[in-house]
């Protein structure tokens, strides 16, 4: 039985179709669900085993990226979300979805309404679309099982992706950092454009303490086929695209539970 994946969308969501496909390719049964359908009780989050908030510009990223959707979720779907998380179901936030998870407080500490970190404007002052190297740290994150220590290549595409938090918060979440922007040797870096937005401690993605909630700025759904790699013609062959591995891990986790 395929795990049901809720791909949550709203006005301005725009990476929903490819995210749907990525989960389907990984063996999930993905459905596009508009936030209104949850608000109006036409759909229940509890009917799904995986929740993903895809990339895009929800409500135009007005005020702050992902903020308006975060306010909507905390105002109307707080209980459903808490139930989903406490049920131990995986939650994934990609790019704008990461911004939403941070602005709801689900990341880093699963405390809805408590915002302790921020994703702010890129140091470059503008949108950045390029492929980056990502060092996978050793964490309890279920999405990166078996990838720890590897250096992956994935694309970023955002204007507000700089990971920012106070010193003590950074120390508190040290063990939850899943991805760091790195140079070609896999060493975390602050130098632009390898670190495309100036993120503190080169943080590109984090999970919650349980490892069930992952948020990241890069786009794994854009690398689930070999022909999506910008230089696929240069390789004789390569294994499973790392983007696909991330989705497979989530699906496998749900199946094995």
């Amino acid at each position: 039985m395929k795990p049901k994946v809720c791909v949550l969308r709203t006005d301005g969501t725009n990476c929903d179709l490819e995210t749907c496909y990525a989960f389907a390719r990984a063996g999930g049964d993905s459905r596009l669900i508009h936030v209104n359908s949850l608000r109006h009780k036409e759909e229940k989050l509890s009917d799904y085993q995986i929740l993903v908030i895809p990339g895009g510009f929800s409500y135009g990223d007005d005020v702050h990226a992902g903020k308006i959707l975060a306010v909507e979720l905390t105002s109307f779907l707080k209980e459903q979300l808490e139930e989903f998380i406490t049920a131990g179901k995986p939650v994934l936030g990609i790019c704008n979805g990461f911004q939403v998870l941070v602005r709801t407080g689900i990341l880093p500490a699963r405390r809805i309404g408590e915002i302790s970190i921020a994703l702010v404007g890129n140091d470059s002052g503008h949108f950045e679309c390029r492929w980056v190297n990502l060092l996978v740290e050793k964490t309890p994150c279920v999405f990166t099982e078996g990838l720890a220590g590897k250096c992956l290549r994935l694309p970023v595409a955002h204007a507000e992706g700089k990971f920012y938090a106070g010193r003590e918060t950074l120390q508190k979440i040290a063990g939850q950092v899943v991805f760091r922007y790195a140079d070609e040797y896999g060493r975390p870096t602050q130098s632009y454009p390898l670190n495309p937005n100036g993120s503190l401690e080169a943080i590109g993605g984090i999970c919650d303490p349980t490892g069930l909630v992952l948020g990241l700025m890069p786009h794994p759904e854009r690398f689930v086929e070999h022909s999506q790699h910008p230089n696929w013609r240069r390789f004789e062959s390569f294994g499973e695209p790392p983007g696909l591995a991330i989705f497979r891990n989530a699906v496998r986790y749900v199946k094995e539970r």
Partner: protein
Amino acid sequence: VRVINRPEVPDPVGEEILYEIKQALGIRSIQKIRTAKVYRFEGIGESEAHLLAQKLLAEDVFQLYTLNAPAIEEARAVIEVAYKPGVMNPEAASLLKAARDLGLSSLLAADSSREYGFYGDGINPEEIQTVINRLLVNPTVEQVVAEKPATLIIRGVPGRTQLLPIRDLDAQQLLELSRDKLFLNLEEMRAIQNYFRTIGRDPTDCELETIAQTWSEHCVHKTFKARLIVNGEEKTPLLKRLQQATAEINHPLVLSAFVDNSGVMEFYQEWAICGKVETHNSPSAIEPYGGAMTGSGGVFRDILGTGQGARVIASTDMFCFAPPDTPREEIPPGCLHPDYLLRRVVAGVRDYGNRMGIPTNNGSVHFHRDFRAKPTVIVGAYGILPKDRCKKGKPRPGDLALVIGGRTGRDGIHGATFSSGEMTERTVEVNASAVQIGHPIEEKRMSDAILEASAAGLIQAITDCGAGGFSSALGEMGAETGVRVWLERAPLKYPGLKPWEIWVSESQERMVLAVAPENVAEVLKICRRLNVEATVMGEFTADRRLVVTYADEKVCDLEMEFLHHGLPQRVLRASWKKPACAEPALPLPDDWANLYCRVMGHLNVCSKEPIVRMYDHGVQGSSGLPPYGGIAQDAPNDAVLLTPLYGRECAVVISHGLNPVLNQIDPYWGSLWAAAEAVANAVAVGANPKETVLIDNFIWPFPDEESLGALDRAVDACVDFARATGMPFISGKDSLSSTYRSKDIVLKIPPVLCVSAFGRLPDINMTASADFKRAGSTLILVGKRNPAEMAGSVYYDLAGCLGSNLPQIDLQVLPRVLQAVHRAIAAGKILACHDISEGGLAACLAEMCFGGGLGAEIDLPAEARPDFFLFNETAGCFLVELGEGDPGELFAGIPYLRVGATRPEQQITVYQDGKELFRMELKMLKEAWQKPMQKVFG
């Protein structure tokens, strides 16, 4: 509420402006800039404002806020910049929504703006004024807020409809009426006068506006349909020539040409693909950000409005500007500086495409000082749709007309008529209302709704509200049937619009659907769920009349016959004489290294990567070839490849070509070059010429006899090209207003033909990229060229001359070359392929080296003149890195030459007849090639 970043947190907005102040304005006295967001609310008290600040506006992690108090302290000066009242701030709606979600029901209105604090001793008011005028405020849409507004609510009472007594006006008065408003000529004004004389009444303002925009060049292409007398002999009208060629070619894959909002060709299985390319010069010239945004929004709606609705899968952008370093005093009055235009147009394309989630992955920027009066801004879009819903729909009597999407405001009034007029000193002030700020999220959710309704088979016909607004959308949809419109039902952004303003307003993000009565409820339901406003505004009838009422008053009642066929066909004279361009006699260069670097650093050769990095070209997960690839992701590819059907390997190829310079010498050969370049770009990545189609865009000076003569030659070139290659034009657009007039100067912007090509490929794996793959491979130059044909080249330009002996593409040979290259790539025999264009073989070779991180050596034939051989720009030629296979077999029967090999050393070495001519470090070439745009975009 004022929100500012904490002192320890950087302020990228402020830093970017500071950079531009130093870069663009050269002002040194300003040391620091801090910015704050200002949010104004009406209808709530202090405690609610605090709640909003804490829950929505300011994030304590990195921000601070103040309430009714300044946030920027100890600055020399603080300037607040806001949109003018009536210019819709897209953020306002989000503020209202979030406030509602937070339970604040009493909030009536909200607005946001930005404050800039200037720090530094010895800043003087003039400098700050300069910064405001040049960087912070575009007076067309923005203003400096002197004092806090009394209210945020725009009030007004609707004006009444007026009769305009034109039946007794004389010629002079008719022209007065037309000027700056209708942009019609005397003959056309007389036709209108006669119509109302025969029906025995005067027109309403609404009727006159309706006719003016329906008859505008922008909407009916009078020039392209005119009877044409060329050098005394009558020739087939321009548009007819293109359409006849397409009809004769009768391409088996073409499903719809020249009839719908875009051209449609067959894809694979049950799918079709479509393409449309638009120009948006006039609005972009006076408000580049808003103009470029609405340009993108408009062309996306053309795709969305094709058949019964198509999904947009790609966006392209082609620009022509004056050089960014053009001295300010050379910019004509009423025109904006190219440096500002370039950066703002790019920002507009970026913000619309990125937010809609449409990859912008093919484009180009061209520079020529004659664009200083008016830029050329071309935006294209491509889509995918089911084959069984790809034909233009026809409304049936009884179908209802739904307007869906954004609300109507006083935006873009006279956009259609204005964009057909010439640019003058008065343009900016008179037509300020003709641009607006686009709202991509509105269009995104509208497109979500349309695609869902389309998939459910609920749409009978669809078209976008572009130029001319409701007037053109409903007028055209109802042309065969007739339509009855209740104007008072139109949802408005604010009250106070006159009926004719509602009728012709060009507010963006609106479309009109024809829906069978029994399906209306379902469509409205879909729209509600997706937060899209939809309103039944009219009904299609059978009386072939356009009848519009506003409440109790009849504002328009015209016969469709007159509206669509009453326009007198123009008779235009054209003649063309080859301009007297001298062919220079250049000495052989002595400093090759320096020359090579200058060619690579020429504005029309240099890397445009900083622009591409700001466009999301990977969204939709369909990219099969990025605009910049290679080991350092900085080497250009020739075209874009997309795999729009997830999990399938079939691909769409998209490319383009244009060259304003050659058209100044001879528009026939210049246009052939553009078409050949477009197709060569596609074939270089593997496209099959037999499964590729074309789109034309003519951006031409006002069609006086001479310019029209040039246009006639350009169209002949397109027709000859289509016939010779079998590639039909299936969509096109012309914009014939690239002339600038002021009291003392008349400036003709260089005529531009942009040819776009798109097609299908069965397998993404049968394609190629431009980056060299390995050291030691053979390099082959494929295609026919005469190196002496150097006119219009970058090499000549650097020598300060134009020349007359321009590349004359051989239409007998070209098709065979294209086929051979396609076959070789499809067979996997080619490791890398790049087409030769600006900068010639030398630039092509360097770019391929950059991509592979490899060097190369080439050996020029003994008899060749080395500079011409290296820098000739004949389109339709390729440099190929050969994998396996014998070139004699691969390229049998076509011109080809073994020119050299790839090398591991990071340099390019050029020999002639075995003797070394010069060698160059790649590093130097790359720096020269990357510098120019880095300077503009930081």
